[in-house]
């Protein structure tokens, strides 16, 4: 899907990086301007629009009552889904989700799940029978690079924005929200780095993503605990590079987390 590589472009971007510069003049550890807007879709129980530079992702949270998983009868259920709709890029096609889309959804899901961001045990209504199901839907609106971080940040923002709907006799009354919030315990954020030749930069732009050798996403919580990682791309990382990325990612993560306040 993203494979529109121009070797010429790679040389240009890589040469700049070797001289310590990025094509858009950012520092290696600088994000593009970030905007997080909550409550942008009032039909959803919670929502957030995240912009990182020109990349825009809208995340909606819907709640429903359903059955728990048999092996976790006392826990609510988290479901994360992503859609890379054709509106967001000439390279996105309609139809069933491709592997890039699935990867984004699963890596965002993992960050939320593994950090115990949501206290799922508080979302049990009747043990083994009825629990809250949380649907996190990632809707990419404009793809200009780094969908992972935008989606992960937006997902947590939307969860923080979520108000429980009114329930009468086990029926959800959509549209009538209570003031009760989701039980949020942690605020995980994901930071993504791209490796281009020997250089490693945070928050890759679209051009950087198109020429990058490999990508590494690190999810951390507010205590600096690492809760998910994902390497992508056909290149490789050394052990030292990975450890360095974790250090830089943890630092950038606390900056990103400020957008969740």
């Amino acid at each position, binding site marked *: 899907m993203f494979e529109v590589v121009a070797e010429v472009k790679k040389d240009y971007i890589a040469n700049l990086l070797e001289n310590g510069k990025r094509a858009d003049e950012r520092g290696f550890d600088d994000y593009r301007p970030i905007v997080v807007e909550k409550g942008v879709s009032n039909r959803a129980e919670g929502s957030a629009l995240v912009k990182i530079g020109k990349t825009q992702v809208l995340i909606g949270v819907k709640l429903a009552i359903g059955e728990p998983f048999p092996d976790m009868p006392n826990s609510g259920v988290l479901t994360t889904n992503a859609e890379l709709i054709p509106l967001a890029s000439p390279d996105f096609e309609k139809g069933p989700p491709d592997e890039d889309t*699935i990867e984004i959804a699963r890596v965002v899901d993992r960050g939320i799940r593994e950090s115990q961001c949501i206290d799922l045990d508080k979302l049990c209504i009747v043990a083994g029978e009825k629990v809250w199901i949380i649907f996190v839907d990632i809707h990419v609106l404009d793809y200009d690079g780094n969908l992972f971080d935008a989606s992960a940040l937006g997902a947590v923002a939307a969860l923080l924005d979520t108000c429980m709907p009114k329930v009468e006799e086990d029926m959800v009354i959509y549209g009538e929200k209570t003031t009760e919030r989701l039980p949020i315990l942690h605020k995980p954020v994901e930071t993504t780095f791209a490796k281009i030749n020997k250089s490693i930069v945070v928050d890759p732009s679209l051009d950087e993503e198109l020429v990058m050798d490999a990508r590494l996403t690190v999810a951390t919580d507010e205590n600096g605990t690492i809760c998910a*990682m994902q*390497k992508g791309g056909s290149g490789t990382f050394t052990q030292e590079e990975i*450890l360095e990325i*974790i250090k830089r990612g943890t630092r950038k993560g606390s900056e990103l987390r400020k957008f969740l306040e």
Partner: protein
Amino acid sequence: MKVGEPEKFIVKGKRLDGRKLDELREIKIEAGILKRADGSAYVEWGGNKVMAACYGPREVHPRHLARSDKAILRCTYNMAPFSVSDRKRPGPDRRSREISKVTREALEPVVFTNLFPRTAIDVFIEVLQANAGTRCTGIAAASVALADAGIPMRDLVPSCAAGKVGGEIVLDLFDVEDNFGEADLPVAMIPRKNEITLLQMDGNLTQEEFEKALKLAMEGCIKVYELQKEALRRKYGGA
């Protein structure tokens, strides 16, 4: 506590299946086990049984996927419906598609795809019996299958996971540890260059724990690497 969660994972320095913290499960690798495939391998890794087949380089279908400058590498990870306790619905689900993708990305760095423009190299990984760590088992098998098919490569790619259970960093989780443990970190690497080609993590680790787990997983990879080489030498009769 979840259903089936053990009270303790480590008793007197031993894990629930009797292994030491840094001990791999028993691994058997066999190269060239399928007749029709251009290359193949079978790996038994603890309770995992995984088969991998490689076809190619061959013509690309559908044709528009072909690249004029290199071969395309395609990996398909699939679980047999009977390979897990609750029958898995046949066909690709989100998990297996993600694993297919990271498997391809784990192998691609070593394959000389530039030698075979306009062709496809297809790798099929079939999980016949699963017991945690199937993606690592699959990558280890796929790499041997590629070598068995005579696909030129910079190195073999071994794979192995480390994780955290009962507060300790351990090598190569089995299912109970995987289900109830605190973290899992599957890794694949190019041993000759000490470069990492697969890295995923879920769970909770501090930076120090991560560093330790990564080192342990890489040591595990080196052991798997030796077994991969042994299997190929056995098949091709070299000493």
